[in-house]
């Protein structure tokens, strides 16, 4: 135990640098995936065939390819086509794209769960598509979508470790580097696990709060 505490004192500052990158990747890709997910979901429910088809195809392609392969593609293949991104940018973009597919399906389900009478009521007071979406459907859909959205946040936090495969020195990679340099596997990976858990806990509490609120309706 004493040696663990000594190790902790030594390694935590280094690991915290990784934590910073983990948070950066998670928040960045959360923003990207939410925005893109909303776009795909809107296209899916737009009623315009071409848009819906395009979004559905994109979603299925993304869902059918492992995140790690998507990251490799963005980081190692895109430069061949003249688009070079930094490792962090590629990580944010890759995880953002990958998760946008799940977010889209979540948002779409929430929108489609709303009673058809809502759209009719909006139409009868003269609202067009955009206004109906913004004032009537999305505010209601967000409430339904919140609990699964919280779960996506937790999954994204953990999946941000996949960015280590394209050299982003986030928490997991930082841990691996220290462990292989010091051979103190137990201390290092216990610390890494504890740090992920510490980051997840607030998210888990938020999800629980969302679910309670949703259950009350």
């Amino acid at each position, binding site marked *: 135990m004493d040696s663990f505490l000594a190790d902790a004192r030594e390694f935590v500052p280094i690991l915290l640098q990784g934590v910073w990158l983990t948070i950066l990747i998670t928040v960045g890709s959360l923003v990207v995936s939410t925005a893109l997910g909303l776009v795909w979901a809107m296209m899916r429910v737009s009623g315009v065939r071409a848009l819906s088809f395009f979004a559905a195809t994109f979603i299925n392609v993304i869902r059918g390819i492992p995140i790690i392969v998507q990251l490799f593609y963005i980081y190692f293949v895109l430069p061949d086509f003249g688009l070079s991104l930094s490792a962090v940018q590629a990580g944010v973009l890759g995880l953002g794209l990958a998760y946008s597919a799940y977010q889209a399906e979540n948002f779409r389900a929430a929108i489609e769960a709303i009673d058809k009478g809502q759209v009719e009521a909006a*139409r009868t007071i003269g609202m067009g598509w955009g206004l109906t979406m913004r004032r009537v459907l999305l505010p209601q859909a967000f409430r339904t979508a919140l609990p699964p959205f919280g779960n996506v946040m937790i999954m994204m936090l953990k999946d941000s470790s996949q960015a280590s495969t394209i050299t982003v020195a986030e928490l997991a990679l930082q841990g691996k580097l220290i462990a292989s340099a010091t051979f103190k596997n137990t201390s290092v990976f216990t610390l890494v696990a504890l740090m992920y858990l510490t980051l997840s806990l607030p998210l888990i509490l938020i999800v629980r709060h969302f679910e309670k609120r949703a259950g009350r309706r």
Partner: protein
Amino acid sequence: MIELDDVRKSFGALPVLKGITARVEKGEVVCVIGPSGSGKSTVLRCINGLESYDSGTIRVNGRRVDRSDRSIRAVRVQVSMVFQRFNLFPHRTALENVIEGPIYVKGEDRKEATERGRALLARVGLAGKETAHPPQLSGGQQQRVAIARALAMRPRVLLFDEPTSALDPERVAEVLRVMRALAEEGRTMLVVTHEMAFARDVAHRVVFLHEGRIEEDGPPEQVFSAPRSDRFRQFLARGE
């Protein structure tokens, strides 16, 4: 105000409207009655473009109703609708439901719209309920909020699609009372209903629809006391 000329519509192979020709004049209250499946709600929904129709013409204030055209929004602003299931926006308060259209569709000043919204809620007997959300209100109260929401658009015509059919019996009267008051102030109303007493007392004209056709059209005293069609006689006998 509303003109229907040989309006026909099918759902797939099933014809629901088989040539409806009718007029609603300004200030007239017309009740549409008929068995379920007779097409009465469909007529209403065609008038404000919630449904398309296959042939014939519908005009509101001289403007052709075409669901696929942008002009439909202008029609809808003039023609407010009250639904069987209220369809209030559950995430907004009673007052917000009422002022939503005036502010976001018509671009009215928020302060004025709010003032009018409060007055409208008071008119339907819901002063003090401004901040209640729809789930906190009874069915009758929700329907009265829906009527206030419809009125807030300053419509030229009010459409009611079985406004009391989803209500508990003891809540029906409070909604009918509000509708009666609206009729008395000379509003143009087209009401699909099963409330025969309302049709008899309030309507200027009663239209009986059966299997997509108008079987009877006339003032209530004439239609109810001397019905011309056998089907209407049967319908009345079964209902009362």
